[in-house]
């Protein structure tokens, strides 16, 4: 019961902030709502007992990537975005499509729920601290992906320099 209240609280918060991100005229305000949306998602992770994922979401998305976003937003002139048309004339068509898609998904889940193979969730109190679990799996079964991640980071570093160099 409590679990569900927590979930719906964070879910509603995330959806509302996401809508605000799209509809705000001021980009910086959009960024603030994006932070809220990301933090609400972190809350959902917490509700799922994924502590480590929760803090990674806070540190990397809310604390790291959003800083970059805010920088980029400040880097471009605000006046341009304030005077631009926010939505083009076909916005109602987009909304309609989104609603149809939403309805389709709802119906699909409602009808096909019986066919979905849902495993029984493990009782939360039996779980070990999730940092430990993540570590144990990451450094035994998934060593290769982990090492490849470092190469990905290396590529990203080079990419960052190349992009910034062109701009200077």
């Amino acid at each position: 019961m409590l679990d569900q209240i927590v979930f719906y609280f964070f879910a509603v918060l995330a959806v509302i902030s996401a809508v605000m991100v799209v509809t705000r005229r001021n980009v910086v305000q959009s960024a603030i709502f994006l932070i809220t949306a990301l933090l609400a998602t972190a809350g959902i992770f917490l509700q799922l007992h994924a502590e480590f994922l929760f803090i990674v979401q806070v540190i990397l998305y809310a604390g790291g990537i959003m800083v970059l976003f805010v920088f980029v937003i400040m880097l471009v002139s605000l006046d341009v975005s304030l005077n631009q048309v926010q939505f083009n004339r076909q916005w109602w068509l987009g909304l309609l499509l989104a609603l149809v898609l939403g309805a389709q998904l709802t119906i699909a889940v409602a009808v096909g729920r019986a066919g979905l193979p849902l495993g029984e969730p493990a009782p939360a109190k039996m779980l070990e601290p999730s940092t430990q679990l993540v570590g144990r799996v990451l450094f035994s079964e998934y060593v290769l992906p982990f090492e490849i991640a470092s190469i990905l980071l290396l590529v990203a570093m080079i990419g960052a320099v190349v992009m910034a160099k062109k701009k200077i």
Partner: protein
Amino acid sequence: MHTLIEFAKPILVPLICAVVIVAVLPLVAGYIVLLERKLMADMQARLGPMRVGPHGLLQPIADAVKLLLKEDIIPEEADKAIFWVAPLISVTVAMLAMAALAIGPWFQIADLNIGLLFVMGIGALGIFGIVLGGWSSNSHYSLLGALRSAAQLVSYETAAGMAIVGGLLLAGTLSTREIIQTQDDYGVWFIFAAPVGFFIYAVASIAETNRAPFDLPEAESELVAGYMTEYSGFRWALYFLAEYTNMVVVASIATTLFLGGWLRPFAGTKAFDFLDYLPSLLMLVFAGYCFYRVPKQPVKIQQAVLAAVGLLLILLAGILAAPLLVPAGSLVADAKAGLHGAFWFLLKVGLYLYVFMWLRFTFPRYRFDQLMHLGWQFLVPLSIVNVMGIGLALVLHRQWGWGHLPAFGLTTVLTLAVAGWLAWAGEKKEKQRAIVGEEA
């Protein structure tokens, strides 16, 4: 009685702790400011605040009242909503970070599995309060201050995080409580196993709290007051509160991870048990000083206030001494862990903050490129090497059966050698730059 306490603990203790932290932190921040002003005055051969209360003891309260009555100005061009929210973000986030810290074995809001990571991650969100505040004011100084601050925070967070990883390798846990207990089990504070890690964290934490010599975001001589230029009245006070709360938070992290948290020095050694009397003795000495100064106060009311402070300190001494004087096993004797734990923790935090202030009064401000150089080209590589060094020491000790001293000694020397090389490379570059600059 015991069962009652056991029953109430899970609900009441966090509630009381949260209320105490939220209610007392503003006061503590005010008194840290007073202490800082007094210390600065002392090092500059002045007296500092002397007028409000004996020795300026009531100055923070007067300041708070004054700030509350100040006009609350919002610049015309400012983004009002963001201008309003930004300082609140800073304060809330800084206070929330306190939640996972264990100030003594009894005083903790929430013991989390990801404790230290939580403190760091939530604390890092404070950057938005600064950036949004600086951006929304629509002033050149504010924006520049905010940008500098963001770049600085971001640059030193990597080094601070890596330094913490070094400590975690030793502890093998992220829970603040367990980290301290591990140090108790080993009988050694982690500062002795990872001195370089502590050094990196100390430097990075000064930069992360925007303190001198890294106080570029609010460099008075260049940017007026940096990101807070347009803030006035209590909003400004909130930024100050956030800054001092952050100082307490980083000092607490350092205390927890490197300085043994709530542990008494030589906690495991029976021969040093006389140190248990130190807290009360210290309080008595302070009380004695208060009474010694009473007759020298010019006004009656000041004499009364100072005497009251003295009595309060004696009361504290009594409370701290009580668990030692009653026979073991009673409730009062059990209170020793909580009371003395909190005392030692706060004492260490206080000493750490004292060093912060000392550095502030000693060093001139860094230039921005020097700051970035120190962060990215000295601390970051050094912290990576430090982590690998501690890892190596642990492997040597656990798998190859080396003793603690040779394993950690060897890796510390290696890390120091890398530090020396990095410093030498930086120096060479600086010289080169100077020559190039002259030619230009």
